[in-house]
């Protein structure tokens, strides 16, 4: 009986405990004052987060009932929708007041978000562990770099070719990989990532080896260059929106349902009429397609590519974004990408401790919310109820 009570107390004070833990971590780094501030902010934030998670569904249902009563189909009153619009408006206005440093970071975060959305198709939807996703990113980036520098193609002419190439390489990796499961699949994809990097590193005559390719031109539209950060920002923003909406639409169709079914129970999925091999192939190809957009965006922004940008650690980083955000959740994955790109920048103040803080944060996350920031069934369910309208 007594034990039960303590557990209850812990459950109720969990947000405060997490906040306390984080602020204690900050104590030696930032002093008492800022730790205290962090504690207050975090506990409020976590409390609302928890409250929303618990009551979000019933709130949403109530709103749906309200909508039915009024008899109109679409009234934008739902809370997540408002939050989403606010976020979009905020992001659209960002270049008007942000300095270049911040824009730079957000652009990078956007590119990573596209990658994370792509990897999410393979890992989050279909449940196939892919540790070599960076290979597709590298293929996309190098394809644009070479087409631009050696063939003189512009960004928009090269883009379809890059997308085609990464999709094709997704197919090529999938064919041998689909005979494998779980850990073995992970190892094969890891090997694929390394092979691509080593080829780029050693094929001197084509890729210029470890020196990389420089002098890549920035994209332009109607003759005006998008080189300036605030213009490039919008290009990345639009690409991210495109990626998000296309992936979302495919997710909520027969194809997306088939992927999730394969993740949940492959044998059962096949007895429901899903050609599992073919759909896993689709997942690989469709997932790597987005690297064909993110790669050229990265190459055109940096004006330079080298194999150094496409190491195994990049794959891990993108995988972390997917897992942190919540496997299978689209908004979550974008959020995960932004958190993992922006947080290290924010933590620059604590210098050498930042990787420590970040990794401890990740560990804590996995303990307290193993399903990721926005993952889990609750979200799926909410979405389902919302969609019925």
């Amino acid at each position: 009986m007594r034990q039960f009570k303590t557990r209850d107390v812990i459950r109720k004070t969990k947000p405060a405990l997490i906040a306390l833990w984080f602020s204690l971590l900050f104590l030696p780094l930032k002093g008492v004052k800022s730790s205290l501030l962090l504690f207050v902010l975090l506990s409020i934030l976590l409390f609302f987060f928890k409250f929303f998670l618990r009551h979000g569904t019933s709130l949403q249902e109530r709103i749906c009932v309200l909508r039915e009563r009024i008899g109109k189909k679409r009234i934008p009153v739902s809370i997540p929708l408002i939050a989403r619009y606010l976020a979009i408006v905020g992001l659209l206005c960002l270049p008007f007041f942000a300095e270049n440093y911040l824009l730079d970071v957000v652009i990078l975060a956007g590119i990573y978000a596209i990658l994370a959305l792509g990897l999410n198709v393979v890992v989050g939807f279909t449940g196939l562990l892919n540790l070599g996703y960076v290979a597709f990113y590298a293929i996309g980036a190098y394809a644009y770099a070479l087409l631009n520098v050696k063939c003189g193609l512009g960004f928009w002419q090269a883009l379809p070719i890059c997308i085609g190439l990464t999709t094709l390489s997704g197919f090529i990796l999938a064919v041998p990989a689909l005979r494998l499961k779980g850990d073995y699949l992970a190892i094969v994809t890891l090997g694929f990532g390394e092979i691509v990097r080593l080829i780029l590193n050693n094929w001197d005559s084509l890729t210029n080896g470890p020196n990389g390719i420089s002098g890549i031109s920035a994209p332009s539209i109607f003759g005006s260059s998008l080189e300036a950060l605030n213009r490039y920002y919008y290009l990345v923003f639009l690409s991210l929106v495109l990626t998000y909406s296309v992936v979302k639409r495919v997710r909520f169709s027969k194809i997306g349902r088939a992927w999730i079914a394969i993740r949940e129970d492959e044998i059962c999925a096949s007895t429901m009429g899903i050609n599992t091999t073919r759909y896993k192939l689709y997942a690989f190809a469709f997932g790597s397609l987005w690297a064909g957009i993110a790669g050229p965006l990265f190459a055109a922004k940096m004006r330079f590519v080298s194999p150094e940008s496409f190491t195994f650690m990049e794959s891990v980083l993108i995988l972390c974004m997917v897992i942190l955000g919540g496997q299978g959740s689209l908004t979550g994955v974008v959020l995960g990408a932004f958190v993992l790109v922006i947080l290290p920048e924010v933590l620059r103040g604590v210098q050498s401790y930042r990787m420590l803080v970040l990794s401890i944060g990740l560990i804590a996350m996995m303990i307290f919310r193993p399903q990721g920031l926005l993952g889990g069934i609750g979200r799926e369910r909410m979405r389902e109820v919302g969609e019925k309208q």
Partner: protein
Amino acid sequence: MYLLEVRGLTKHFGGIKAIEDASFKIKEGSIVSIIGPNGAGKTTLFNCLTGITRMTRGVAYFSGRTISGLPPYDIVRLGIARTFQNIRLFREMTVLDNILVSQHLKIKAGFIDAVMRGRGFLSEERTAREKALEYLDFVGLREQAPVPSLSLSYGDQRRLEIARALATDPALLLLDEPTAGMNPQETSETMKIILRLQKMGKTIVLIEHDMKVVMGISETVIVFDHGVKIAEGSPEVIKNEPMVIKAYLGR
């Protein structure tokens, strides 16, 4: 006349003879029970018929076409659906989505349609949704449509499995222990569902241990023991068959 005909079906797992030379025919529109002690090869038989495992020897004809060697998704297309002994739902999907998945073959939309969200796509999705709700109605789970399937009670999970199999629009339903773990009331409800399925024109083969169910609804009973078919006949005949009493029913 005969919907399913199995001839000389044999399945060996290495040295283990799970099924040995089984032959039987199943009449269209009938309810057939397969009984036998644990390890008699009943579930293996289902696995062979649905293409999950490949049979070592023998052939199976389904409405005149051979199905041996086909992959599971092609067998479903021909019209055989099944449920599983150890419930295999798509646990993290909602109840409704579980049914939507099994309508996979009926939805024609591809990638482009899914992205464009044209009128065709939307109406197809709407039809699938409405159909799914009908199937849920059939087993009495309509209210649970937006709930994740793992949060259903045990009996409801079994019924969802039946609805999901039904949503593939099969002519033949293979039910693997549909009443296992159910209380008497749930069992009798499930029996009613099975009888209603028969009225809809479905042919049903079930593996069952509950003799009340077996004797109550089946027209033919097939008995397996150690991978061998030892008897086949109407429930009355089977009840008094000495071999069956010795191997399975007991006194």
